[in-house]
């Protein structure tokens, strides 16, 4: 099937989804073919990336403050083709190639009206319990939260727009801009995409840390100015000092913590310069012990990050410009009917997987 080909379902077309019944119980099952309601469109989902949160939901039955309470589809990093229009949709046509923004806010509350729709108290984010995700052959979605992608952006790249949105959002939330130094703790898919965006936008120097030497080597090839291998046995303040010394002793002006691991967050805080910003991107334990006096008395601001907002247009522009080269982060692709293999690959570090995608 070429990139432009799509299949408009008829009464015989079967739909399949990747269903998490409960913790540790993931199956590809036949699911009903959805019909778009008013304002919605039907999308043939062509590519979906697997996120660490999908793995976490699968293995732990919860993520952050959201427990799995009923069987649900996983996946929220998707792109596809419009196959049917619901009533009243004028902004899209059948055949349009789109990226799916998985979060649907109410658009009416104070947060939404102030433009901070990611903080809408009643946002429906597909794949966060209890809402079904996008890992299906066909899904429906409000037209308003779909973004057309140009022909030179593939579906695989379209699926990368979601983690790219996290990276753009994280850099913006921290305030890091060109000419300023950045520390990224964690060279997983998010950390590496942040690195790519940082290099593409002139942020420099960039330091990146990880426990795995192979990921650090990968980061070095992507243009990281300094790499630092974390030794879990080393006290966090020692690691912080070694990281600070890489950039002249004072630490970085901005830090993005992309692991969610408590010791990494503590190190990240202590490695940030006075008056800097340390932004937590990774999701980890609900309560963590932090060196409060250290960051308070040095006026290092701590900012949490929740998803993204208003990033898709910019992410599409960045992807379409060709300035960003992150296709190589897609290390494995599986057909949706082999989704379990995809999940097993993604969950196993020894495979060297960075971003695993499921295609249709």
């Amino acid at each position: 099937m070429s990139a432009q080909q799509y299949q408009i379902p008829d009464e015989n077309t079967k739909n399949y989804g990747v269903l998490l019944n409960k913790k540790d119980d993931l199956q590809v099952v036949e699911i009903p073919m959805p019909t778009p309601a008013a304002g919605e469109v039907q999308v043939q989902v062509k590519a979906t990336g697997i996120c660490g949160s999908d793995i976490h939901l699968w293995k732990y039955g919860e993520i952050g403050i959201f427990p799995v309470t009923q069987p649900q589809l996983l996946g929220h990093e998707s792109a596809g083709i419009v196959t049917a229009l619901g009533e009243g949709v004028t902004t899209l046509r059948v055949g349009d190639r789109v990226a799916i923004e998985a979060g649907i806010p109410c658009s009416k509350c104070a947060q939404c009206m102030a433009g901070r729709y990611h903080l809408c108290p009643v946002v429906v984010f597909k794949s966060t319990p209890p809402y079904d995700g996008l890992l299906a052959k066909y899904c429906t979605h409000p037209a308003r939260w779909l973004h057309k992608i140009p022909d030179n952006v593939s579906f695989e790249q379209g699926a990368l727009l979601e983690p790219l949105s996290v990276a753009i959002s994280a850099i913006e939330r921290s305030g890091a801009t060109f000419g300023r130094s950045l520390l990224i703790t964690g060279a997983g898919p998010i950390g590496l995409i942040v690195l790519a965006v940082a290099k593409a936008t002139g942020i420099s120097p960039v330091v990146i840390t990880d426990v795995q030497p192979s990921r650090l080597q990968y980061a070095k090839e992507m243009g990281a100015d300094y790499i630092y291998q974390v030794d879990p046995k080393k006290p966090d303040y020692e690691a912080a000092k070694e990281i600070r010394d890489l950039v002249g002793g004072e630490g970085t002006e901005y830090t993005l913590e992309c692991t969610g691991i408590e010791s990494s967050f503590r190190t990240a805080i202590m490695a940030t310069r006075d008056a800097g910003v340390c932004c937590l991107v990774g999701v980890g334990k609900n309560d963590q012990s932090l060196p409060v006096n250290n960051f308070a008395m040095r006026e290092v601001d701590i900012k949490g990050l929740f998803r993204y907002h208003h990033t898709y247009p910019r992410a599409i522009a960045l992807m379409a410009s060709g300035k960003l080269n992150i296709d190589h982060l897609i290390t494995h692709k599986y057909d949706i009917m082999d989704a379990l293999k995809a999940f097993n690959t993604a969950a196993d570090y020894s495979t060297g997987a960075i971003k695993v995608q499921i295609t249709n």
Partner: protein
Amino acid sequence: MSPPQGEMNQCVVLRQKNDIVLENRPIPQLAHGEVLINVKATGICGSDIHYWLHGGIGDFQLKAPMVLGHESAGIVAEVGPGVKNLKVGDRVALEPGVACRMCEQCKTGRYNLCPEMSFAATPPIDGTLCNYYKHAADFCFKLPDHVSLEEAALIEPLSVGIHSARRANIKSGDRVFIFGAGPVGLLCAAAAKAAGAGHVTIADLVPSRLEFAKNYCTDSQILLQRSQSGEPNMEFSRRMAKEILKTEELADAVIDCTGAETCVQMSVLLSKNGGSVVLVGMGGSVQSLPISEISSREVDIKGIFRYCNTYATGVKMLASGSIDVKPLITHTYQLQDAVEAFKHVKEGRDGAIKVQIVA
């Protein structure tokens, strides 16, 4: 101009932990850009008490006798070479921290973080509790005639309030919640109101403090309880926050002036999505925080280190009457009774809020 001849320079000196004496020291000689201030009013801060009782705060430890005090105002007695902004007789508030003015932090305006900062009464720099104190003229702020020196001495703790209100991004109509109704908490409330806050709630363990706060820049008051023995702090904090939210709403800005772990935790829980928590109180160096809330609700956590660019603002606020600090001055002592004044603050007697030493 020659220095005052034959005048005594009585100084309140902390010789070592628990040992304060009055000493007569030479009147300092002025270098380029400095003025000599005849100090008239000095407030006593919790940090002065802490140095007295413990001999140090964190990394700042007393290694030699040091004059105490940093919340002062006075009259210019002598003007050194190169000083253009002041003349003898000018009444001034003293900003106690003199920065280097040359490093990157200074040049970008965050001079409170200057690595070469000389801050009065932080070891080894002598403080202002004396008759004659020399100071960089550009860190002295001229007062209009109708602002008293006693009020001007309060610009120092007021500066903590102004800096906190700015760090918390308090805007008109905002809802602000403050933990701690001591002088710092009250001045944070005053700064919040001056910044246009629509509703200020203040919380404390001590009912008499809340009684006072009822008539000073706050709209509602919450009486806090101590955690019961055995209950983990995070559980207590979640329970208390739920309780508080029965009568209060989530806040745009929460300012913690206690340093207590439970209050810091509650600060996050009481913040709106996208709100700010400012940590003013200094507490345990490692604290457990509700990270899931900080992340999923994007609540910013910002500490403060003293203040910067607040003195000119403070003078204007006192001059215009947008803040009235006079009610906070509850007790006054003469310089020779300094030890009594310190004991008074330590014991917190008679509803003491700000105790000042005047000359």
